[in-house]
């Protein structure tokens, strides 16, 4: 396919599908609608006027759920009279104590550090966009976000918790802690945000916000 453009800036009117790499000419969308790839059906971009407001609310809720999920026990196990409660942090310390440094650090980054970073980046980014400040900061945050996002594995960790529970059921008495439900809420928010907020849209939003400020 060939296209006719006057300058490189006009390439802003095009999108390449992240899944099948087909080139598309952008269309103006009504608020609340999505553009889908004609070849593979992937969501290319969408229009959401309230993105900054919603993003800010979602990232604050995500951080609260994350804090609650990590402060209190996820699971409680019991055998005869002995009881033990389990949280993500105690799991990490347990691994390091046991001498499993590689597994400990690996798991620590994938299920604790990176998910926390993703939500902190979203929070600071949406705050900066809302206040129309920190043009450079928002660029650096968006670049960092692109590197961290693929390493956030909290959804996979949730499934792993369920598998571990099934393995334990026969052996010990297991109870869900308060944090378990907070963790599910966190993963749900995380999935919602990563599915619905595309990095390309955030860059466009950033251009728009600071352009408006200059005028």
């Amino acid at each position, binding site marked *: 396919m060939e296209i006719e453009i006057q300058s490189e800036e006009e390439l802003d009117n095009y999108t390449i599908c992240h899944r099948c790499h087909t080139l598309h000419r952008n269309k103006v969308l009504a608020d609340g609608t999505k553009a889908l790839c004609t070849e593979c059906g992937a969501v290319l971009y969408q229009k959401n006027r309230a993105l900054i407001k919603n993003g800010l609310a979602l990232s604050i809720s995500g951080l609260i759920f994350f804090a609650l999920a990590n402060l209190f026990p996820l699971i409680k196990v019991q055998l005869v009279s002995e009881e033990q409660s389990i949280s993500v942090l105690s799991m990490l310390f347990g691994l390091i104590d046991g001498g499993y440094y590689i597994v400990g650090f690996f798991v620590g980054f994938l299920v604790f550090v990176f998910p926390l970073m993703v939500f902190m980046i979203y929070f600071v980014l949406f705050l900066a966009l809302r206040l129309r400040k920190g043009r450079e900061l928002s660029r650096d945050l968006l670049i960092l976000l692109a590197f961290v996002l693929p390493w956030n594995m909290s959804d996979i960790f949730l499934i792993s918790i369920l598998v*571990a529970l099934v393995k334990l059921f026969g052996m010990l008495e297991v109870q869900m802690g308060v944090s378990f439900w907070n963790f599910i809420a966190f993963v749900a928010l995380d999935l919602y945000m990563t599915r619905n907020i595309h990095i390309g849209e955030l860059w466009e939003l950033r251009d728009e916000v600071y352009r408006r400020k200059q005028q």
Partner: protein
Amino acid sequence: MRVDSKDLLRCPVCEAVNLDKGKRNICRRCGRRIYSHRKFRTEKSWAYLIAAIIFYIPANLYPMLIIDQFGIKTSSTILGGVIELWEHGSYPIAVIILVASIFVPIFKFLMLIYLLVEVEYYGFRKDKKIDKFKVYYLAEIIGPWSMIDVFVVALLVGLIHLSSVEMITGFASTSFAVSVLLTILAAKTFDIRVIKKD
């Protein structure tokens, strides 16, 4: 200016569409370097991939989980764990672990070998039978799920320290985690745009 869509690049960091200028491409929106296929060498990907396959072998041979219950030790490898779950009637979980720990890594190895061999020996030719973008995309999506068993073992080992029951992991979990990390690095160093230039 007329531009062929084959001469356009998608910035992996900010998703902006860029003109492929050959050797050195700097994204016009985020300012990051976009690697061009013309400079692409397969050695790095091969090195990561071979190391990943080497680490995958002990991951399957050594016990993944050792359960010490009232002084009696039972140990199981990845496959052994799957069989145990199956025998206990936890069919869905057995299937999840089997797919995540055995099928997904092997599929990723084969896919990367296929893509690297294609690029190395046949150049950037077009293969109509297999849509390589779809294969790559699929591998990217399912890849991280191979971490399930490591997470499960990390949970059990990091947590269960009761006086009568203790869970220990062997060399298998470390080598499995290293193998997954190396596979991800192999895929990341593999420049997806070599596929496009067919």
